[in-house]
């Protein structure tokens, strides 16, 4: 069975796991490939205005996959992937939203992962998926094991500096934290940071301008978990915890000169997480740039702001020491 996997949203976080599981269960995953202007425009047409850019892009990928002729579309309902946390309400409703956007033209595989409830963990989700793919339940366990192995391997590679941008997105590797490079921390949800179309190639542009880049995925788990716990009340959004935790870690890292936080316009969690990061950066005297993106963002305007930011970092480097 040809199963369409949109290269959008949590593809950028969990692709190694789910692609392996699908293959192990005898399906043939068809990945939609990099976002293009056309993908984005198609998604914008299918969505209500208020939906955030990455969800619109997701719709675009789904539509492109349907055009390709697939047997089913893979849109897991990821409610909660860690204890006491959610992803975001839109992920909880994603299969319903996609079904509405595309009509009944395609079968949707939507296993539910909700670790807040008993009996709806990964094992159950994969068992359900196995059933839908016509495989015996005993294969599910093995598939999930192989999936986690692949995921762990990928995450280790990310921590070592091979970003999802290249390992999952097929973009040639960027130079990251080598000793002589000056570093900028780039924060944000993986589906914004690593999607070249959405981020307007932020990572590539920084690299070409001679900067090293540190993203949340390069920060070891223990370090960002510690950062996330430094808040008086822990965040209940998985992606937000990761962003805040990584930000807190990168802010005190002596080699990181400034932080850029990439958010989608209208992102609910980031409207609060971004504010917390900004205030913490201000307290610590770390230069911080918030870039809000939507489908109307002009490339030239964004790049001017980034240039102004890096120029400012250059002046700080040349002149006065960092205020503490």
């Amino acid at each position: 069975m040809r199963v369409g996997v949109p290269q959008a949203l949590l593809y950028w976080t969990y692709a190694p796991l789910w692609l392996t599981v699908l293959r192990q269960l005898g399906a043939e995953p068809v990945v939609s490939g990099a976002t293009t202007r056309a993908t984005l425009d198609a998604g914008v047409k299918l969505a209500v205005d208020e939906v955030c850019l990455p969800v619109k892009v997701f719709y675009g990928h789904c539509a492109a996959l349907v055009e390709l002729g697939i047997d089913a579309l893979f849109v897991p309902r990821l409610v909660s992937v860690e204890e006491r946390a959610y992803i975001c309400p839109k992920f909880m409703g994603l299969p319903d939203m996609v079904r509405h956007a595309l009509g009944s033209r395609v079968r949707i595989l939507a296993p539910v992962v909700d670790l807040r409830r008993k009996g709806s963990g990964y094992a159950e989700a994969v068992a359900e998926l196995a059933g839908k793919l016509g495989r015996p339940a005993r294969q599910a366990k093995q598939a999930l094991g192989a999936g986690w192995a692949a995921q762990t391997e990928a995450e280790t590679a990310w921590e070592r500096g091979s970003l999802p941008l290249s390992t999952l997105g097929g973009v040639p590797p960027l130079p990251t934290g080598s000793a002589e490079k000056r570093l900028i921390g780039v924060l944000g949800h993986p589906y914004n940071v690593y999607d070249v179309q959405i981020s307007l190639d932020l990572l590539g542009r920084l690299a070409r301008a001679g900067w090293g880049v540190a993203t949340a995925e390069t920060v070891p788990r223990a370090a960002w978990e510690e950062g996330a716990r430094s808040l008086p009340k822990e965040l209940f959004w998985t992606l937000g915890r990761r962003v805040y935790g990584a930000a807190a870690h990168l802010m005190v890292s002596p080699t990181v000169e400034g932080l850029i936080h990439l958010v989608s316009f209208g992102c609910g969690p980031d409207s609060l997480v971004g504010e917390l990061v900004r205030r913490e950066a201000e307290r610590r005297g770390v230069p911080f740039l918030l870039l809000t993106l939507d489908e109307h963002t002009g490339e030239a305007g964004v790049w001017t702001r980034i240039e102004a930011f890096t120029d400012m970092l250059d002046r700080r480097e040349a002149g006065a020491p960092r205020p503490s």
Partner: protein
Amino acid sequence: MGTLYIPVETLLLDLGADVVVPPPCSQRTLELGTRLAPESACLPLKLGLGNFLEAEELGAEAVVMAGGCGPCRFGYYAQVQREVLEGAGHDLEMVVLEAPQGHLRELLAQLRRWVPGFTFGRFWRSFSLAWTKILAIDTVERSLQQARPREARRGGADAVFARFLTDCRRADSPRRVRVLQQEALEELAALSNPERTVVRVGVVGEIYTVLEPFANLYTERRLGRLGVEVVRRLFLGDWIREHLFRFRVQKERRHLAELAGPYLNHFVGGHGLESVAHAVEFARKSMAGTIQIAPLTCMPEIVAETVLPEVTADYGLPVLTLFVDEHTGEAGLQTRLEAFVDLLAGRSAKSVEG
């Protein structure tokens, strides 16, 4: 939020706390809040912040705010508001009531910490008075929704409701509250003309913007004046029941999940699922249309907005979605409401002819 201040004030006063109630939400509240709040935070956070600042001006030293555990942003409001207030140099202590889903006991334990001379017996007495007020306000407000489009003199029904709220706020026994309720209901009945034909429209959406008239620019009053009887399921009493006595509402939750199921098959936080379920219910009860009200960028309601067109397609129920924020203009809103009501009137005229 709406009339929530009345029972909360009653409860705290009765327990012996020194209570400051900020003035009702106004343009000034919004401006104060918007100046300090993160730009892309949703409207309720900004208005809440404005309320706190206005309470501080009246001498408040601490503010009470509810917490939560997501996925809606509300659960994290208090943390951000505290940061913002501190950052702007306001010395206002924030007491955050984390009502961990259905654990009334933990909430009581928290109350005990900061109300002197707290006993459960006393709490129960104060709580029953507050609860009676909530139910009375909800009952009178339902009647207000029916009276508005039928009132003989414009504004008459709202005047009765305002007077009832003032009296109810001061009432010191459940019996007094029930007397006031009865009086208000009779007055509302007296000023309505039952002969008048009205259009019935359901209201769904995010609870704060639905219940706080300032946040939705008095949409229900505007609708009433356009000859619309507003019907909604979201009331203060239901909201509190849902949060404090979760075990009692399981059956209703299942019912809502069944209604929404064909369109939205999972809880999405806030009142997203309820919005879809209520719209289906309104369609089945042959309302002329439904209006969805929510703060701009509200995540659960965006999910609901996405699937509501299917309810429209299946039941022929027109739905108007209103996202409100600090830039929402009165004239623009009025025009949209008028156009919507005209559309509904046109449809019903057509169905009569056909």
